[in-house]
């Protein structure tokens, strides 16, 4: 099955079952997840199995957002052919966690990790 078909399939499935997230004003780029530890930012580090370059990921981001029920914003490419994205709206901790789980469940997503804050020790 080709990748666009897979995404369309996932889109249809998740659109029916995914609850709608409560949108709020667009946050600062590095705003943390509301109601959680300061160590979790709203950013997500994402890597696809086969979509490695920035243009490819940007081209599929809207489709990806639809599949998880949340508009997503592309922030920047990373080393290791990963990419940093974030939801277009502030989410509470539970919603953010659900977003991560939905991203991880999408075929073709190698990993989706919160862009956690690290501190000096």
């Amino acid at each position, binding site marked *: 099955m080709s990748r666009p078909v897979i995404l369309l399939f996932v889109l249809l499935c998740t659109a029916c079952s995914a609850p709608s997230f409560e949108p709020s004003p667009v946050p600062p780029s590095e705003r943390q997840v509301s109601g959680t530890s300061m160590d979790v930012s709203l950013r997500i580090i994402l890597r696809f199995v086969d979509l490695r370059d920035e243009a490819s990921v940007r081209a599929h981001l809207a489709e990806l957002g639809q599949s998880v029920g949340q508009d997503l914003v592309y922030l920047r*490419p990373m080393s290791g052919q990963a990419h940093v994205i974030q939801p277009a709206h502030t989410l509470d901790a539970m919603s953010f966690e659900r977003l991560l789980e939905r991203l991880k469940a999408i075929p073709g997503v190698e990993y989706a990790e919160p862009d956690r804050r690290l501190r000096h020790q």
Partner: protein
Amino acid sequence: MRKSVLRVLVVSMAACGAAQASAIKPTAGVVMLSPEPKVTRLIVQPKRFDLARMQRLDEPSMAAFSQAAGLTLEHVRAMSGQAQVMRLPVGMSAAEAQLYADRLVASGLAGHAQPDRWMHPQRAPNDPFYASSQWHLQPLLTGLAHGGNNYGLNLPGAWDYTTGDAAVVVAVLDTGLLPHADIDGNILDASGRVKSGYDFVSDVEVANDGGGRDSDPTDPGDWVTLAESIKSGGTFEGCSVSDSSWHGTHVAGIVGATGDNGLGVAGVAWNTSLLPVRTMGKCGGLTSDVVDGIRWAAGLAVVGVPANANPARVLNLSLGGSGACDAVTQQAINDVRAQGAVVVVAAGNEGSDVAGFTPAGCAGVITVAATDRQGQIAYYSNYGGAVEISAPGGDAYIDSKIYSTLDSGTRLAANDSSYKAYQGTSAATPHVSGLAALLLAMNAGLTPDQVLNAIQAGATPFPAYDDTAYTGAAAANCTTSLCGAGIANAAVILAQGDSVPDAFGFASRNDVALATLVTSEAITPGGFNAPATIRVSGGEYSLGCAVGGFTSLAGTIGKGQTVCVRHLSASSEQTATTTTLTIGGVQGSFTSTTTAADTTPDAFAFPPVSNVSPGSVVTSSTITVSGITAAAPIGIVNGEYSLGCGSAFTSSPGQVQNGQSLCVRHTASSAYGASVTSTLTVGGVSAGFTSTTQAASGATSPTNGGGGGAFGLVALTGLAGLALWRRRGRAIR
């Protein structure tokens, strides 16, 4: 007492003495140790418990030890560790003394025996805070009650081997770096010890320098105000209110503040290069920035960032966050390990199991827990099975913190090159990073796993205090299941890993034959105690010098092994051939030079002829030239010569090779009973060919050696030539 324990004891004793010793002043990073004086005593640990504890060994006991050793031993004194000191009858090398010590062990009388080797004053830098405040770098002091010990990194003995190599780059992934008089006064010019770093903090607010990523890793300060901390929804909501930490400058100073410069503090590896990689700003840094910094530090590509011209072999991450190791960070660690980079990370300061933290809980890193001066785990340090090693991190509740480079500015930098003590696993980590840099300075070929193995193998065992006052919540004994293999011990680790031999070489050989196999004498390289890489160019080597053991393939040579080299000598005269043997990076050579060209032939002669017809052309017998290794000049007087004795005769000068034949000819005298002599000279050796014509009457046919009558004088000349010809017959064919 096991051998290893005794060794630690001896090292500790030596290290204690070093604290008061004057500094050695080497001129380069690697210090050449002076030859040891002769060993005059053995340290012997008797197997019999009573003998081990006796203050004085009686004569029968000593007689037994002497008999076992094969030479007369005299009891000197009892020593700590249930051992006895015995005097040898004569001074000898440590290796020779070890043989006698081994005999004692083999006899069953001693559980352990070793030469009582001389200890030298070890290197102690002249930095004023080294002696007064940097307990964490100083020699081990163990075996005392709680409060009296010093579980430092034990560096003086290690600095005798190396103080680092500028070719080994240590990346400090932290808050950036400030110019500091004790590190590098200009961190942006790339001409000093600090290489061109990068600022990976992508968020402008966090970066606090007015922009995102850029090529300036200078620390602009990371202070957080109360207003920022309580601002709902703000970037720094919930962050601790604090002045600027200058954390990266503190960490960098522990790794490699300039040592022995009479200023401030010493670093662990003060000749190593530092690479500032700014990954944290106000309230820390994001995983995505840290991960990019990890890859870039090791020389891997990062989108939008110029390539790193100075890839690091050691990455110091005195940072971390809650949560098990994520796939993003683990992949980056895997990537840089594949590049040969050693990743050293802080266990964390939460007093919890390290498994729940990143990057401390990641695989493939060296996770460092913090210990205090007494060798116990610091109250704040994370712990657990994922910890590989411990190092001094300080504990203000117990004694003191870790002193290093800083700045006194509370928000913006004062740029005053100040110093301050911090505590934390952040401070423990750069001790291990610096140690890894020292190991790599000695052997750049070590893999990340080999570096870890070496550090763990040489670690100081954790002390176990019985007093419950020191085993409560504020202070706890470490165990290997909590704090890794032990406390990093630089002197022991570098001694174990000393694979760099003393200078060595082979005696040159001259006047060797052309194109022959020439073998050097056997040598035993000294001054190293760990297997060293051996490779050869321009010939072959043989360990043990077995004739059948020569190879040109790289291998490993162990302590005490003999080695010789061989090569095929040159095929031309007076030509040198050199074989270079490299052991642990030290090169020694063996040169043979072929013999000089020999153009002086063996003696030769032409038998005279007589009774030849007057005016006839007379040709000599043929000779074969021998005994020369190069073409020899030919000259002839009063005649002609021919190479190969064909039809081509000439009187012009020429050359002859070894093995070529020659003959001469001339026209006999036109008178009866007269002689003519031609003189042929080859390479300075001359021989005459004489013909004598027949007598005027009653002449007979020409015969060799004939003649007489009126031509007696000529005939005698011919006879003399014949006699010479017979004496030198080997040259005549």
